[in-house]
């Protein structure tokens, strides 16, 4: 037997066995209108946000609510880099207030984040979502766009990351 190196065995083990499915990452978002401006409510797994480094260290096995609140700046930056809202007047501003944050137990623990959006126009609203795609290969957003006439339930993924299609 000339099975030489341990690392060869590790790869060998990987090579010779069938694949199985890994866990699927899903977030939810409601998009509605409040006082002539869009309001987004993003429900995202605390575990996924932690892994993405949006709440500090990605190696945390435990997390406190205070740590979540303390990550406000980091999380704001993460949101502003990956969630964009535009109108006919151009890019809209997205903010979130920690006093509105909640958690929800839904198979796993979700952070419920209301995101206030300020747009320069009442028309041509469009959401572009690219959160968690870079560190959860199977991440998808189940979007509930409640604003007429484009009201719809649909799925956003790396292949189709914005809605509605046409402004």
């Amino acid at each position, binding site marked *: 037997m000339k099975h030489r190196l341990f690392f060869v065995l590790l790869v060998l083990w990987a090579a010779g066995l069938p694949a199985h499915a890994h866990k699927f990452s899903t977030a939810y978002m409601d998009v509605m209108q409040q006082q002539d401006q869009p309001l987004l409510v993003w429900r995202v797994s605390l575990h996924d946000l932690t892994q993405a480094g949006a709440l500090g260290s990605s190696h945390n096995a435990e997390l406190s609510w205070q740590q979540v609140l303390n990550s406000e700046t980091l999380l704001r930056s993460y949101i502003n880099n990956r969630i964009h809202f535009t109108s006919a007047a151009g890019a809209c501003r997205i903010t979130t207030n920690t006093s509105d944050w909640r*958690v929800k137990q839904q198979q796993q623990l979700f952070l419920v984040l209301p995101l206030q959006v300020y747009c320069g126009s009442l028309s041509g609203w469009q959401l572009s979502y690219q959160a968690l795609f870079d560190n959860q290969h199977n991440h998808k957003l189940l979007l509930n766009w409640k604003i007429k006439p484009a009201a719809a339930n649909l799925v956003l993924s790396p292949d189709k990351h914005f809605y509605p299609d046409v402004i």
Partner: protein
Amino acid sequence: MRNVLLLICVFWLAQPGATEYRPDGNERWVLHTGLPLTDDMILLHQEMDKGGNDAARLQLARAYLHGARRPGFDDWFHQAEQLLQGVSANGRTTTDYFLLVADIQQQQHQFVAALESLAKVFQLHSTHVQASLMAARVYLALDQLDNAQRACGRLWQQDLFLFSVCQYEVAGRRGQWQQSYSALQQLWQRQPNLPVALDIWLRGILAEQAEQLGLNVIAIQWLEPVLAQAPTSIWLKWADLSLSLGQGRAVYQLLSELPLSQLADSLLVRLARAEIQLGKPGSYTETLHDRMQVRLARGDSEHAADVAHYFFYIVDDAKAALQWAERNYHTAKEPDDKHLLTLSLRALEANSEVLE
């Protein structure tokens, strides 16, 4: 239309309800029970924290990817993916990188992409052992037996033991179950000190062949001694065999020890099946219903076998089971995938006969 209804249903389930609340500042949660890093991984992490090079990054990614195959360690798959994303342009031309990418791709059932990555390894090393084995595995998943045999052939001058196991696995898939099983058994008996990884690999093939010969009890016996160290795929095979023999208690005991949040859908389906077999209150079944509603709403097509299992064994919906088994068979064509397709088809035919 069905997907739209499902999405509405999932959104209804996901609406803010009684469980949404504003926590106290001191409230803490365990996001995942500690997945223990090995000493080597800790050292590699320390090296990475100091700036780390591609070699350390690839080694750590390999360790995570290897670990991710164990039940409950799915998160490590994403850690491996993230580490690979940080590999430099130079590092992306190395054999190790292509191998790891190929492994991730085959785990995602992106078999064609995996073969393309392996082709890059073969351009650098035409008889690379690990790449040859992985190529054989991918071809087996695609039921391309001639190509699988050619991939095994690359091992001929590299490692006779690996070559033989690989060849006998392919021969089994060609329908020569009895001859291959006898030969592999002899091979296994002649190697009393096999390293664990090789032992698990060989036992997995022997269990599949024993099952094909109708020897389900023996198939279980091949797997049980190595379960504690075995990857999820072996656990799934063991659970399916056990459930087929009405041994739901053993499946329930083992799988219910894993934290529910870390239980992959594939394992949860088997646990719910065991729960039903034992007549227990359906807490795992309820969780599975919720997870499957989300899976259906997401419109995923990869790893459709989980959904086919769900419809066949849990919901008893032969029509949906067949639809998902067909979708699964479109990408994966191993004996288990074929078996699932046949079972679903038979169930649907039986239902049609009853209705007539």
